């Protein structure tokens, strides 16, 4: 009986085919649309990792963070500071981004999980503002509002297309790890605490500890995205930890669809495309973007992932969960 039960948790063939198809499509766009296409693909991929890290908290832990960019920014700065202030070789510095973000997640998370719901959200916002302010004002160390620039050749000198491909491989690894987390006993603990912390506690789980672990994992992967972003542009600015990036991530997750693993992926894809193309068409792009987002949310209450799932169901595929 148990062997049969365990098999259900392995990725199914159709899901793997879907992932392979998506990778092939992105890689085709990356290779066939020139430099601007590759830059766009790289940005989409980085945002997919960032949004998916927030999605772990929101969709599965039911923890709404209003300060997720803090960990994205710490990722960028962990990487950039290791090179500029501690003379770590750039390749080795890559680990310091996610590491600093994870440590930030541990410190701020320990504080935030003491509260729940809106109070939790406000604390995450406060922690992010603290991070932003420190990055913005500590001129001697972080470079203040001018950020850190010129410490490396952007993308380690890789061509735009090769960087996008490399980012894609890394993103696949990150998404796979996140997928495994969600489907592990820890993921179940995160989901059960998210749905009903009192019930989960009555079953022997410590809600705060579970939430803290989720918070650190989420911060770590936001840090991976932030590090990639710093490599992509060859710089780090306080804005990376600012409200703008936090809002982008929130919009991506909600747009993509809560309660779905692929919510962050779909949201990052569509939102990044809209953000890049709508401004080319009109000067009032923010208004148009807002209207498009409103329309999507109204038409697809379960987000893009929910919409895709429904469409797949109508077509009889039923694999795109």
């Amino acid at each position, binding site marked *: *009986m*148990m062997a049969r*039960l365990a098999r*259900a948790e392995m990725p199914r063939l159709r899901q793997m085919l879907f992932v392979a198809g998506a990778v092939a499509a992105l890689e085709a766009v990356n290779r066939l649309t020139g430099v601007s296409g590759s830059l766009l693909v790289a940005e989409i991929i980085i945002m997919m990792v960032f949004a998916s890290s927030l999605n772990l908290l929101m969709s599965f832990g039911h923890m709404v963070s209003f300060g997720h960019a803090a960990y994205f920014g710490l990722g960028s700065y962990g990487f950039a500071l290791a090179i500029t202030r501690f003379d770590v070789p750039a390749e080795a510095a890559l680990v310091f981004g996610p590491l600093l973000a994870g440590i930030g997640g541990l410190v701020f998370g320990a504080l935030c999980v003491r509260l729940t719901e809106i109070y939790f959200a406000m604390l995450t916002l406060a922690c992010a503002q603290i991070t932003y302010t420190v990055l913005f004002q500590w001129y001697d160390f972080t470079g203040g509002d001018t950020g850190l620039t010129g410490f490396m050749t952007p993308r380690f000198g890789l061509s735009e297309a090769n960087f996008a491909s490399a980012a894609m491989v890394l993103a696949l690894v990150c998404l796979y790890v996140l997928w495994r987390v969600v489907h592990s*006993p820890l993921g*179940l*603990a995160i*989901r*059960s605490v998210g*749905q*009903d912390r*009192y*019930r*989960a*506690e*009555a*079953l*022997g*789980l*410590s*809600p705060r500890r579970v939430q803290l672990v989720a918070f650190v994992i989420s911060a770590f992967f936001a840090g991976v995205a932030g590090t990639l972003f710093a490599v992509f542009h060859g710089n780090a600015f306080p804005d990376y930890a600012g409200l703008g990036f936090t809002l982008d991530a929130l919009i991506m997750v909600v747009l993509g669809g809560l*309660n779905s693993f692929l919510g962050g992926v779909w949201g990052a894809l569509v939102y990044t495309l809209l953000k890049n193309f709508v401004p080319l068409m009109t000067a009032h792009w923010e208004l148009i973007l807002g209207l498009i987002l409103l329309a999507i949310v109204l038409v697809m209450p379960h987000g893009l992932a929910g919409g895709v799932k429904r469409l797949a169901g109508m077509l009889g595929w039923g694999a795109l969960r």
Partner: protein
Amino acid sequence: MLRLENVHASYDKSEALRGIDLSVTPGEVVCLIGRNGVGKTSTMRAIVQDQITVTQGRVSFEDSDLVGLRPYQIVRRGVGYVPEDRRVFQSLSVLENLRVPSAKAAGRRQWSLDDVFALFPQLYEYRRRTAGVMSGGEQQMLSIARSLLTNPRLLLLDEPHEGLAPKVAEEVVGAIIELKAEGVAMLVSEQALHTIRRCADRVYVVDRGQTVWDGTVEEFYAHPEITEKYLMVQ
């Protein structure tokens, strides 16, 4: 194994319990009865320290004090708790619901998934179903099964028959009898005794936050005035 002595407890400022005394010995099924709102649920909550503050008195389990511990710490010591609203994790499957506690087992008898499926065969049949769409009775079975996977030596069941059809309620009684045979001690709250008279050993009557009577099931039936005074709707 469980002992409550003169327990007073309150939610914020409002006092819910004003002197609860009770005990449960190993392997025993004890019934807590009383009208709606007299403090049965609060008593259960005071035992596992769930959303209520014990302001006076002592709650002990196997000679260690429970007041001040977190609910999960109490559960890990071997007290299973199936609350009144039998909240299952709605969007998780039956199997996932059952796996939530399995990572945290601590007790003497190690319950496995196969064990609870043997006790509640329907759960195996519905294992892939989303818990939220199951009937009330099925959710109650799931809620009990899930608590068993914390390996409790004492199980608290808060009004397990509430809102269940008589036939389903009978299945729950069957499960209680089987668990009793397994040696699991239980504290069961009910609005009336008749639903579980077949398996209860002793009875406590609660009124206005206090235990007002206790005795065996036979003694309870020998004193119809108790029912009249504390349990009839006035």
